């Protein structure tokens, strides 16, 4: 049995920030991550981040993990390790590689387990060549493997638009980005980057089907009417060997569900999300959440949430209350700064639903 004061599950932006915040407040931290390399999705984010200086604005995502590991000395890192069980008596089970199975007994846990990609139903979606955007980024930006020769991107949120830009950087033409909504969801400056690179962004459009003998050879797209239905006769075929889906994310909650954390369906935050208070404590006293697992948002917010959850957990574990409260207050102000504009409206609405419920729980 491995014991620790704080266990952080997930080494992405939320988990790294949580581990760092708790360690800097003098708490002993065990950080467990299933990847070989810490950073979660950051290791694929080659673009410069938004926000202000405190959010590492202007720094490329790939360079942020190092900045988040300043207190590495006080953090024990277990990579290539998946936490696979979480029980009411504060025992978690984990597997390193394929053969080392063990138990962890922490005093508190921050779950920063991220999100998984949503999928889309259409004929041919099981053909080789239909990818999630995360897989395209992993192949291309982490392993240096091109996913194909030409791409149809489905979804014009930040992920769809940014991955389109990265595909262009890798030398792969993006024939079009289709988006069912009437407006682009991504930051418009990102959209303008690919527009001036000649990529058409087609709002009120969807993919109808992908076809090919053994793999994707083409895709059919079509326009949508005001009721989001395909307008007959508007279909057209595009020759591509990759269909890349960037149609949203859902929080990964398996472990939280197993241990019995209360959850709620909040579509603004990606679907089912854990109930939590303003300091990111769930309905279970020793469990905190941060990052996309707490509700799908930008990585900048995940880092601040991680720091908040790490500090809140540290305070509960006996760290200097005043110091921890200072960090928490800074984080609340920082989250407010990120969310207060019009692009944060959806997130604010989602969180209002959650925190109201947590207060009444």
């Amino acid at each position: 049995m491995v014991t620790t004061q704080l266990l952080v599950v997930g080494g992405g932006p939320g988990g790294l920030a949580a581990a760092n915040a708790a360690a800097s407040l003098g708490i002993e931290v065990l950080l467990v991550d299933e990847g070989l390399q810490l950073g979660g999705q950051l290791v694929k984010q080659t673009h410069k981040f938004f926000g202000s200086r405190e959010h590492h604005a202007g720094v490329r995502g790939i360079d942020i993990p190092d900045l988040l590991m300043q207190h590495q000395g006080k953090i024990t890192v277990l990579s290539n390790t998946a936490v696979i069980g979480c029980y009411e008596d504060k025992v978690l089970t984990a597997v390193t590689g394929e053969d080392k199975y063990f138990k962890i007994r922490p005093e508190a846990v921050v779950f920063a387990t991220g999100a998984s990609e949503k999928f889309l139903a259409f004929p041919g979606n099981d053909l080789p060549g239909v990818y999630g955007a995360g897989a395209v980024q992993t192949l291309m930006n982490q392993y240096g493997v091109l996913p194909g020769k030409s791409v149809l991107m489905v979804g014009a949120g930040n992920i769809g638009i940014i991955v389109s830009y990265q595909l262009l950087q890798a030398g792969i033409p993006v024939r079009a980005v289709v988006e069912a909504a009437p407006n682009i969801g991504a930051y418009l400056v990102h959209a303008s980057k690919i527009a001036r690179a000649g990529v058409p962004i087609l709002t009120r459009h969807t993919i109808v089907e992908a076809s090919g003998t053994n793999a994707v050879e083409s895709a059919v797209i079509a326009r949508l009417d005001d009721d989001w239905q395909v307008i007959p006769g508007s279909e057209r075929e595009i020759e591509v060997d990759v269909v890349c889906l960037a149609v949203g994310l859902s929080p990964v909650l398996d472990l939280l569900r197993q241990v019995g954390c209360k959850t709620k369906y909040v579509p603004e935050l990606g679907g089912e999300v854990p109930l939590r208070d303003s300091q990111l404590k769930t309905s279970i006293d020793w469990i905190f959440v941060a990052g996309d697992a707490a509700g799908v948002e930008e990585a900048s917010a995940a880092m601040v949430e991680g720091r908040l959850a790490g500090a809140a957990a540290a305070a509960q574990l006996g760290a200097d209350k005043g110091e921890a409260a200072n960090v928490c207050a800074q984080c609340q102000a920082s989250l407010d700064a990120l969310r207060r504009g019009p692009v944060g409206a959806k997130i604010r609405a989602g969180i209002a639903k959650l925190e109201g419920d947590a207060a009444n729980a």
Partner: protein
Amino acid sequence: MLKSTGIAAQKDWEGKLPEADRRKAGPYVVIECYQEIPCNPCEGACPNKAVCIGEDINAIPQVDYGRCNGCGICIARCPGLAIFVIDEGFAPGYGKVLIPWEFLPVPDKGDVVTAVGRDGKELCQAEVVEVRRARNQDRTVVIGLKVPVDMVNLVRGIKLGGEDNAR
């Protein structure tokens, strides 16, 4: 249109230009940032304090054209690659457009490239008159294009893939 295509309309970008007198007076910045998003590195990038966002980082940057000297330091600091610098008096009949560039190949000074507009459509041939690769630009190259002076606020990019590899 911008919201559904990513392409700013003429009335959008015209609203970002300084007055005609200032345009003639020397190089000036054009910040093509139309949406309130949480982002403010441009404000800190300017050595002349010409760019203001203020306390709410979601505010749209405002430029004080009395302070802006068109140095272009902010171009590579914008995570959205939305900043350009225009010099309408670069050479008789020609202006210079400084653009951010993160694709390969990176053209060399003296190359002639195909300049494109906000929609990616080809506009004209342009001589590369400057290539900035300062360390603090963090792998975002800034390229100066010499274009006919009536094109300075239309040209915003270079055709991808180089001249021999056009798609």
